[in-house]
């Protein structure tokens, strides 16, 4: 082995490509590292900038909810924003104050993102005191005994992967102990210029090792392997020293870009080639950056959230490059100024290294948790892009063994299906291909473009499929409704006939029947129904006002259950997959709509009087009933629709139904379509409730606007057991639906799981 490597080194003197034989993955490049620029400098003292900008939106996941208001005084480590949904599913982490000060604004600012888009951020004006809350996480310093306990701490500490992807660390950890057998520490900082991990390993080797040991303990991992590139001798020495007498193995790996890539380093350290689309958990190995381990240590031992990180400020445009433990939210420009730039910083700074970083749209963007480097390289004259000569240098350099020139060929011809077939989604965007391209083609950008195009194409295809399904469903529904309406019309005509003949005989008999008849004809013309009702005595409303209110409750419960299930649907996604933002949005939207509907309902109630006048009906009671009934009907329909949506292609029969409703309305039950029956029942209930309301609680109704639920509660104390039964049924239904949905969801998630 040693002989071989020395031979290769000898050959490498003549042929630089021979260096590629020294490491286990394909290709790789050997750029000018320029690491000594900043590595030779000691870590500088932290600066407190004039203002800190803390963007809410993180690399992945949902936007957390702001917990402070403009003008609030906060202390260091204080919680500023927290994921509103179940955080274990929302894939986002809380935001903490990096120092003490005042919240001066919550406004959109330019994000450190290649797009240069703006988003909401908390602006904190430091007071310079740097007063802090100690142990804000409330830990006792002991090692968490289960992965879940560790995950809770990591979540609350707001720790994300600090190597670059910014994926929340808690989300990478499996829930059960023993799933991870090997813990990997990524100390292969392969990007040129960046030295923050190097210096971290030199100065805080103990913290890193401790962090790894804590994690290994909690996860039940047996081995801990740390890979450090051979060009960091000081870090290797420090780490070896710190790791002596522990089970942490320090392995020195070759200096080649991109050695620090997760899959590349895993292969180099363990010889295991991670299958594409597989996550760390699938192969029982978990790799994290050294900085992440240090943050874990600080969170678990001292309860410190992640509010600062070591950042390299370097570049050929700076006189005094340095490393500094920088507060999150510090603007780039402030840090660059500290390094005394050689000329005015009128060119965009780069966040990250020269190989994978991106130019920021505005030099005032803040440091975020994934900012490992701020690079100030003055713009160089760009070589003109020539056509691809298919030389294959990119292929030789690609660490993932892709065919870059063929992917480029198809990308530029917009043949994205072919690009996808060439496995563009396995591309890690390391930039090796662009680095070696003699034609100076921005290959990586072509792949990024192709990736986003392909993603959009897939999303569109899905949307089209959804639209088609919904349209077909709608057509089916319209058809069904038409048939039912005809059937009902027929039934009703007969009923009316009977009724008229009966009503003349005995009024007492009719107390029940008209109600059911009207309920069955819920969709028929309102006038007809009104006419039918005027015939019935007033006592009907009074008599039924107790039972229906129970039914009404059932509807409410069902609605709420649906709402809940919608919310849960988004929340209960498997945590390792990214949540579909759309779903959560829709849930939120639906919830909002519910609220809106309720409000509208209340409004409608309120405006009963004027409507009555305009309608000029003889019986105010009846018209009131109608208004309320209509709205309730609509609500019930909406609920039913949602339910239908959830069930979608699943067979309708399986849906269980509240036995109450079924027994109460035998006529509708016979129709066979149980959901329809439920709707029918709900409608009838609503109608009765409206009748009840109009007589009993006119005044209370008129007053309520925002809190009609409470009003509803006041009137529904009766027939408790019936309500319970109805609610039980509704809950059962909701649970069933949820299960179904989840199954579907999981399916689709598995299919479209991001391969990265």
């Amino acid at each position, binding site marked *: 082995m040693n002989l071989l490597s020395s031979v290769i080194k000898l050959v490498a003197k003549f042929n630089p490509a021979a260096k590629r034989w020294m490491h286990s993955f394909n290709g790789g490049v050997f750029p000018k590292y320029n690491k000594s620029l900043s590595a030779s400098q000691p870590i500088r003292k932290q600066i407190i900038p004039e203002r800190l900008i803390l963007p809410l939106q993180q690399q992945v996941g949902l936007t957390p909810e702001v917990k402070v208001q403009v003008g609030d005084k906060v202390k260091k480590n204080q919680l500023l924003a927290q994921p509103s949904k179940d955080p274990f599913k929302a894939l986002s982490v809380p935001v903490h104050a990096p120092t003490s000060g005042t919240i001066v604004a919550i406004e959109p600012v330019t994000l450190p993102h290649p797009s240069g888009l703006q988003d909401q951020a908390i602006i904190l004006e430091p007071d310079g005191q740097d007063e802090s809350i100690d142990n804000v996480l409330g830990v006792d310093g002991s090692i968490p005994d289960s992965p879940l306990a560790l995950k809770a701490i990591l979540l609350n500490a707001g720790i994300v992967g600090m190597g670059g992807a910014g994926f929340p660390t808690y989300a990478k950890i499996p829930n059960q102990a023993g799933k991870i057998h090997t813990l990997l520490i990524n100390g292969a900082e392969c990007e040129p210029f960046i030295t923050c991990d190097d210096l971290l390993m030199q100065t805080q080797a103990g913290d890193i090792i401790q962090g790894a040991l804590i994690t290994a303990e909690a996860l039940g991992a047996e081995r801990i392997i740390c890979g450090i590139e051979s060009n960091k001798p000081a870090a290797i020495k420090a780490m070896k020293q710190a790791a002596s007498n522990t089970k942490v193995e320090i392995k020195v790996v070759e200096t080649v870009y991109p050695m620090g890539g997760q899959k590349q380093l895993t292969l180099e350290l363990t010889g295991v080639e991670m299958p594409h689309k597989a996550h760390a958990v699938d192969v029982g190995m978990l790799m994290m950056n050294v900085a992440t381990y240090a943050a874990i240590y600080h969170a678990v031992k001292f309860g410190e959230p992640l509010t600062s990180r070591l950042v390299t400020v370097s570049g050929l445009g700076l006189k005094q490059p340095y490393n500094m433990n920088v507060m999150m939210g510090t603007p780039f420009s402030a840090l660059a100024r500290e390094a005394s730039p050689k000329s005015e910083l009128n060119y965009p700074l780069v966040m990250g290294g020269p190989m994978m970083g991106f130019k920021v749209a505005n030099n005032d963007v803040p440091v975020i948790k994934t900012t490992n480097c701020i690079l100030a390289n003055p713009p160089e004259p760009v070589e003109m892009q020539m*056509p691809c000569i298919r030389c294959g240098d990119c292929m030789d350099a690609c660490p993932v063994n892709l065919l870059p020139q063929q992917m480029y*060929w*198809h990308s*530029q*011809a917009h*043949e994205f299906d072919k690009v996808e077939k060439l496995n563009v989604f396995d591309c890690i965007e390391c930039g090796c291909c662009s680095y070696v391209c003699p034609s100076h083609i921005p290959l990586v950008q072509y792949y990024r473009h192709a990736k986003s195009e392909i993603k959009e194409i897939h999303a569109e295809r899905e949307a089209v499929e959804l639209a088609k399904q919904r349209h077909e469903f709608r057509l089916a529904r319209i058809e069904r409704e038409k048939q039912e309406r005809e059937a009902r019309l027929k039934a009703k005509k007969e009923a009316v006939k009977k009724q008229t003949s009966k009503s003349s005989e005995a009024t007492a008999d009719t107390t029940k029947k008209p109600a059911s008849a009207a309920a069955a004809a819920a969709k028929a013309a309102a006038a007809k129904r009104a006419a039918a009702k005027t015939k019935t005595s007033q006592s009907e409303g009074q008599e039924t006002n107790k039972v229906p209110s129970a039914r009404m409750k059932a509807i409410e419960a069902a609605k709420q259950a649906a709402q809940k299930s919608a919310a849960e649907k988004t929340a209960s996604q498997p945590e390792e997959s990214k949540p579909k933002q759309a779903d959560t949005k829709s849930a939120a939207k639906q919830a909002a709509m519910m609220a809106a509907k309720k409000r509208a309902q209340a409004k409608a109630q309120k405006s009963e009087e004027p409507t009555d006048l305009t309608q000029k009906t003889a019986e105010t009671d009846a018209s009131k009933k109608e208004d309320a009934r209509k709205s309730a009907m609509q609500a019930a329909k909406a609920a039913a629709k949602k339910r239908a949506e959830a069930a979608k292609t699943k067979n309708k029969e399986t849906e269980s139904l509240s036995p109450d409703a079924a027994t109460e309305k035998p006529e509708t039950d016979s129709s066979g379509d149980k959901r329809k029956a439920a709707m029918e029942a709900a409608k009838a209930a609503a109608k009765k409730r409206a009748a009840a309301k109009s007589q009993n609680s006119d005044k209370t109704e008129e007053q309520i606007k925002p809190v009609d639920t409470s009003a509803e509660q006041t009137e529904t104390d009766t027939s408790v057991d019936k309500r319970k039964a109805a609610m039980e049924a509704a809950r059962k239904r909701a649970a069933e639906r949820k299960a179904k949905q989840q199954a579907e969801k999981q399916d689709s998630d598995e299919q479209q799981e991001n391969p990265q």
Partner: protein
Amino acid sequence: MQEYILILISTVLVNNFVLVKFLGLCPFMGVSKKTDAALGMGLATTFVMTLSSVLSYIIYTYLLHPFGLEYLQTIGFILAIAAVVGFTEMAIHKTSPALYQVLGIYLPLITTNCAVLGVALLNVGEKNDFIASAVYGFGAAIGFTLVMILFASIRERVDASDVPAPFKGAPIALITAGLMSMAFMGFGGLVK
């Protein structure tokens, strides 16, 4: 045996029906936009060509020649070819709707594909025996399929090129076909 191998080499490479004899250019240009379609077309044509050359041999030797009706050979061959093509079309429609869709209008056009009729006529002219006829038809079809696939794969590449506007599409395809034909001249003399 050697004779059949020579016939095969001759029809596939040296006297390639498309690139040397310039027969069957219509599907060659028409169905060569996608490699898959080209392969499908090639296979369909292989089937038709082999079968029709055998059929036409039978018709010629046992029906037309004994009765001195050689002058009716063209019409007889066309009848046979049309029947085989009709059969193939129905079979493909059933077994591989996707391929049927891809081949589109070119499938029925095999009927009037001059390569197919050409095989039948040339075969008679060469005075091949029964097996030689089959090999001749099969070889010609394999040669057709081969250049179809090669041409389609090149076209896929050329389509993504920065071809000057006046030459986009059919013109550059024809030029490519011409250059391919030139390259195939290299096989000249392999079989006397």
